[in-house]
């Protein structure tokens, strides 16, 4: 029997077995940001331990950074304190920080791949659950807690137990107007928000193989929303073409050797999986969430499900809670429902391909009256590309607020927040209660394409109709 990529990478990074039975796993690459690292650096100081491999840790500031005005001191003194702490901690340890003036700052899950730091066959961790994103290049990438950030800084290793591996296959060809985000929401809807507990998801099948890297990042980013701590795609020609020439990618002869090595990590054709599920790409519609968990989603032409039709009592209760919070009625369609805010960005959908894909449709159109629309590039690199390609101007002319790079309205740690019970058409990853900064704010997760349709119509809309995509 062959091996999965997960098992090969795990074995290549195993240091040994700890007394309690857990594996001591070597971490190839570590990212830190300002929210989950300061306590870890403080713990190190308390233990009087140095950072063992500063060259394997990379830092940036993303969660707390305002996207409108980044002049220092920041308006929020707590945000400034966190930024200062990251600067001090990384400078003292000799860790490379992609700070604001570098041109490389951005959401940690955007800049890792864009800089080519994220590479196949690596174990990659960060104190952030969306670290799963980096698995798209064919790595074991996972979110960790702050105490574990300390462990990595001090020892470059973690105490871990291996996950099982579920092969999630999407076969066929996605219909026009259906994107990686729709695939992610569809899979989570099918397997449930807790369906991936104990699993890594290996995404495969012809529809995934046909996806560009930015689509694969979107898909793996959302693995954690289905409870899979890791998501990954086997490295292939698309992966290598994406990485070639990026600043931290191997160069010259080292490149050829690296590609050969990376190929060897791909799951064997006869690899043994703990579970396999297969979906048909043609069954996937533009998908939108209606509730307060990412698995509460429907196709754009569907209706909000009824609690009484739930398969079990817990789901029924969850649906009642969600309907109440979202102020929705069972059986109503979402299509046509007015929205207040549009947010295009985040580590899920703030990449160059996301903006490129919708710019042509926004050209010559206007954001609907009364709608606040934010477009937030995930990184300074993406922002500069969008300026160079005229994409930023298209968004501005359409009436979007074109912002500076950061996490923005994904998680309410910076000034970009919903007010009251506003409804937000959002390309982010979580529709939890209060997620976007107002304890009563309402989030509808969707693709950038559907968010663009929402922006120009002021309603939840089918982008295929609005933009004539067939």
């Amino acid at each position, binding site marked *: 029997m062959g091996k999965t990529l997960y098992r090969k990478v795990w074995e290549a990074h195993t240091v040994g077995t700890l007394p309690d039975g857990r594996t001591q796993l070597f971490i190839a690459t570590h990212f830190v940001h300002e929210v989950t690292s300061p306590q870890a650096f403080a713990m190190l100081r308390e233990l009087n331990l140095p950072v063992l491999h500063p060259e394997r840790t990379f830092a940036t500031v993303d969660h707390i950074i305002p996207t409108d005005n980044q002049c220092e001191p920041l308006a*929020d003194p707590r945000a400034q304190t*966190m930024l200062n702490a990251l600067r001090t901690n990384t400078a003292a340890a000799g860790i490379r920080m992609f700070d604001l003036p570098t041109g490389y700052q951005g959401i940690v899950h955007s800049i890792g791949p864009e800089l*080519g730091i994220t590479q196949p066959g690596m174990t990659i961790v960060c104190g952030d659950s969306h670290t799963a994103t980096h698995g798209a290049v064919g790595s074991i990438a996972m979110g960790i807690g702050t105490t574990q950030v300390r462990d990595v800084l001090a020892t470059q290793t973690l105490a871990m137990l291996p996950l099982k591996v579920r092969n999630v296959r999407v076969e066929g060809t996605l219909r026009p107007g259906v994107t990686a985000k729709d695939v992610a929401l569809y899979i989570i809807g099918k397997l449930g928000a807790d369906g991936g507990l104990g699993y890594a998801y290996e995404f495969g099948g012809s529809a995934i193989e046909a996806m560009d890297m930015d689509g694969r990042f979107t898909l793996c980013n959302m693995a954690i929303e289905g409870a899979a701590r890791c998501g990954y795609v086997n490295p292939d020609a698309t992966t290598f073409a994406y990485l070639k020439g990026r600043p931290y990618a191997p160069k010259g002869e080292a490149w050829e050797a690296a590609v050969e090595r990376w190929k060897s990590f791909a799951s064997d054709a006869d690899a043994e999986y703990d579970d396999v599920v297969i979906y048909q790409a043609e069954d996937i519609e533009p998908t939108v969430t209606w509730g307060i968990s990412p698995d509460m989603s429907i196709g754009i032409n569907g209706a909000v499900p009824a609690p009484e039709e739930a398969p079990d009592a817990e789901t029924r209760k969850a649906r009642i809670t969600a309907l109440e919070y979202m102020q929705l009625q069972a059986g109503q369609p979402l299509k046509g429902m007015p929205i207040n805010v549009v947010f295009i960005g985040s580590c899920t959908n703030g990449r160059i391909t996301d903006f490129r894909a919708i710019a042509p449709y926004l050209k010559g159109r206007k954001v609907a009256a009364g709608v606040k629309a934010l477009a937030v590039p995930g990184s300074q690199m993406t922002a500069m590309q969008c300026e160079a390609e005229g994409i930023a101007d298209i968004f501005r002319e359409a009436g979007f607020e074109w912002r500076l790079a950061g996490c923005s309205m994904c998680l309410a740690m910076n000034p970009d927040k919903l007010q009251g019970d506003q409804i937000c058409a959002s390309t982010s990853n979580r529709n939890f*209660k209060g997620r976007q900064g107002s304890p009563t704010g309402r989030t509808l997760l969707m693709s950038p394409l559907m968010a663009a349709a929402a922006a120009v119509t002021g309603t939840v809309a089918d982008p295929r109709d609005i933009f004539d995509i067939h």
Partner: protein
Amino acid sequence: MALNKITSVCGKAVPVPGADMDTDRIIPARFLKCVTFDELAGTMFYDERFNADGSSKGHPIDAPQHAGATIILGGENFGCGSSREHAPQAIKRSGIQAVVAESFAEIFFGNAAGIGMPCVCATHAALQTALCITREAPQTQWSLDLEAMTLSCPMATLPVTMPAEPREALMQGRWDAVVELMNAPEAVAALAAKLPAPSL
């Protein structure tokens, strides 16, 4: 590092009902604007417990009969969402010493174990029994025994489960892994030399 061996947790229980209790509900992001965990006591489940004007929503955590509880009774996929260790830190610093739920999100579970707060699973039926007893008789003293893997009180003894490795780590006082992780410097150095690091 000498750590206390965690073999049992005793005390009253408090229900925190609902499936998919996410980390944004456990601790809203605005409380993450800090560079220490010191200010997190009392912030757990804040928006679940309080309205915007600070008035109580009547959550069980704030009911007088559950005051001083040390064990949370939760639902499925407890702690899903973010990797923020602030979530178990806020719970622990608010006086809770253990969580019993139907299942746990991986990262939350690991974070809790790493700070010495056991998270154990119980079946839906067992949790219903525990919830029922706790609601009827909130003063009930529960004992979570990691050796016997039971949650018991004078009225009931309920089985609980936990993977063997984190259970061993808690019971042996090895739950903070950093000491063990520093025991194999040569093996770590050998891998560091062999496995490429990203470089310019």
